[in-house]
């Protein structure tokens, strides 16, 4: 074989052809040649792997246990009765959070009242335990409603663009100019105090951030080929938006919403502190329950 002088030939493609690398042998080859990975590292499903990773994240674990503890204490603080039927009979709270003990007003912490009592002699520990219910429900309800407003509007704005986008985004811009508390304070001043009024006020200020975030995501997702493909196949806009676009754009919104529960609870507490929270008398221990945002 002589190919010393053939330096030039190699630079031209198409001169050399290799045959005999017969890949058809794989089809009926003995399986001892197949190399199998150790089961333990590969064949776990996505959820298991996610859980494995989660377990290794100490911050997340601590967060989860705090939330679990809070849920536990708030659920079992007082019995839950729905339409006369006791759903949850346990009562962990040492006192009725609404009961005033006028013999012990403004007490410092003691063995009977580990957190002391408030100005009307109510046990603060019980109020904190029970008040968590309000905090958590306010957080969850507000964020859910805000999502159901913000997600469709953000999706519409991002998907259609044009004047729909302009109108929705200008509305968002306008609301954006009012700081959370300022707007909520003004709204509560108009609507009056109360559980649902508070939620309404909070929803009105929370939805805008979800709409904004989702719109941005939708703008980039709608450029994807599967969206073009769905359009080419004649899918209706509604099904494109809700089957193809929104699910792929939701991830950051979901993260934001999870963190948002904490923010909402904090703001509800701040409203409570300013005297604009729930009606006087309801355990506004809600105001003091720690809000834990899980990273």
């Amino acid at each position, binding site marked *: 074989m002589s*190919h010393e002088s053939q330096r030039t030939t190699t630079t031209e493609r198409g001169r*050399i*052809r290799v*045959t005999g*690398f017969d*890949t058809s042998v794989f089809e009926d080859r003995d399986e001892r*040649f197949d*190399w199998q990975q150790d089961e333990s*590292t590969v064949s776990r499903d996505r959820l298991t792997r996610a859980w494995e990773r989660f377990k290794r994240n100490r911050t997340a674990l601590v967060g989860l246990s705090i939330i679990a503890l809070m849920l536990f204490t708030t659920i079992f603080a007082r019995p839950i009765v729905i339409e006369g039927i006791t759903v949850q009979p346990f009562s962990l709270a040492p006192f009725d959070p609404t009961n005033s003990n006028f013999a012990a007003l403004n007490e410092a912490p003691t063995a009977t009242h580990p957190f002391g009592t408030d100005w009307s002699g109510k046990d603060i520990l019980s109020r904190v335990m029970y008040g968590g219910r309000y905090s958590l429900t306010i957080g969850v309800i507000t964020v859910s409603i805000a999502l159901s407003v913000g997600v469709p509007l953000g999706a519409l704005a991002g998907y259609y663009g044009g004047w729909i986008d302009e109108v929705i985004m200008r509305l968002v811009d306008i609301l954006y100019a009012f700081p959370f508390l300022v707007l909520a304070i003004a709204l509560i001043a108009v609507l009056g105090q109360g559980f649902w009024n508070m939620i309404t006020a909070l929803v009105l200020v929370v939805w805008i951030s979800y709409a904004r975030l989702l719109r941005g995501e939708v703008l980039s997702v709608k450029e994807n080929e599967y969206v073009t493909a769905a359009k080419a196949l004649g899918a209706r806009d509604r099904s494109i938006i809700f089957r193809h676009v929104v699910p792929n754009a939701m991830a950051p919104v979901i993260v934001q919403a999870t963190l948002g529960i904490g923010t909402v609870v904090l703001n509800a507490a701040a409203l409570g502190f300013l005297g604009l929270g729930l009606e006087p008398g309801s355990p506004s221990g809600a105001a003091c329950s720690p809000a834990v945002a899980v990273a």
Partner: protein
Amino acid sequence: MSANDEPLLSVDNLQTSFYTEEGEVKAVNDVSYQIDRGERFAVVGESGAGKSVTSLSLMRLIDDPGRIKGGDVTFRSTSAVAKLARQFPEGVATENRSGYIHVDELRAESGSVGSDPGATVRDRPTEVATSLHDGSLHVEAGHVDVLDAPDEAMQELRGAEIAMIFQDPHTALNPVYTVGEQIAEAVRKHLDMGDAAARERAIEMLDRVGIPDAEERYSDYPHEFSGGMQQRAVIAIALSCDPSLIVADEPTTALDVTIEAQILDLLKELSDEEDVAIQLITHDLGVVAELCDSVMVMYAGKPVERSSVEELYYDPKHPYTVGLMSSIPRIGDDRDRLDTVPGTMPDLVQLPSGCSFHPRCPYAEDACIQHEPPLVDTETGEPIEEPDADIHTAACLEYTGDLQDGVEFDVQIREDAAADGGESV
């Protein structure tokens, strides 16, 4: 022995691993090769073969959780040795002290080193440094142990002596600085130039790599350049401080075909004219043919074949190489379908037993499952002591005589339209 006979770069038994949750990923597993001055050397393999990690290891740019576990990287550049000896006299190896800068031969202008005419230079690194500085001594030969150098010394090597070109020029440039500034920055750092001089040099470099109106384009931002121009700018950065080795990591993969040809031409021209060696990393044997002199094929972190480019093309030895070659699409191909290498690169945490390639090798036999083939001279079947570009080596049991049926394939060289010539191994 003159220093110039020795290779510019020797990589010996390099091992780099990544420590992940799944275990130790042996990305580079005992790799040795060498590159001569001005040589164009290719490292070929599919993604995951350890090509990029090899290059990043020699630049010492391996980040957590990766770690270079062992091996030697010897860089024989007189300018690098002189520069480092001047700046880090404490790193110069002497008879009674180990170090990473080895000064083998010095030429003294005045005939003596320091104040003591009888002293050998190796005893007096500090005085050597001073004498290097005032110009009375010149380094004639020496080398740097790259893996032992401290970070500060590495910073002096990177960019100035060993430069790098990356795969995706679009992301390789910092979006918030002008292209010119990104070149000038390296020049200021390594060539001791002021702002104005560095700017001049950067414009010169832009012009050198074929960017029209270099003066105006100096203050353009990367996004104002096309992909091909961005890669030219990246090459300009690499070239700006006169390196003796450029590591090009898939420099044309992100570019389209016409641009690819231009960039390859440019690299070839530059390496000829500036006498700079190139280590080209690619998965494309076609690119290798156009640019390189010798080649190393890697599979699963190990070299499986090493030879000159001609040898590899006309007489491939390792089944993996053969598989890669039969998957190159050709003009006028009359085969029904392309034979690609079926299957995928194995998980580097758990390599298949014996020959790592056996699950994908059509010639695999029982011996392949049991014995790991060493890298041997394909003529003699003897293991090789040192990497030598002139010896064609491959890691397949065929060449140690352990296979019963042997490896069979044909290489046809077509002189005209008709295929003739062929050989069986």
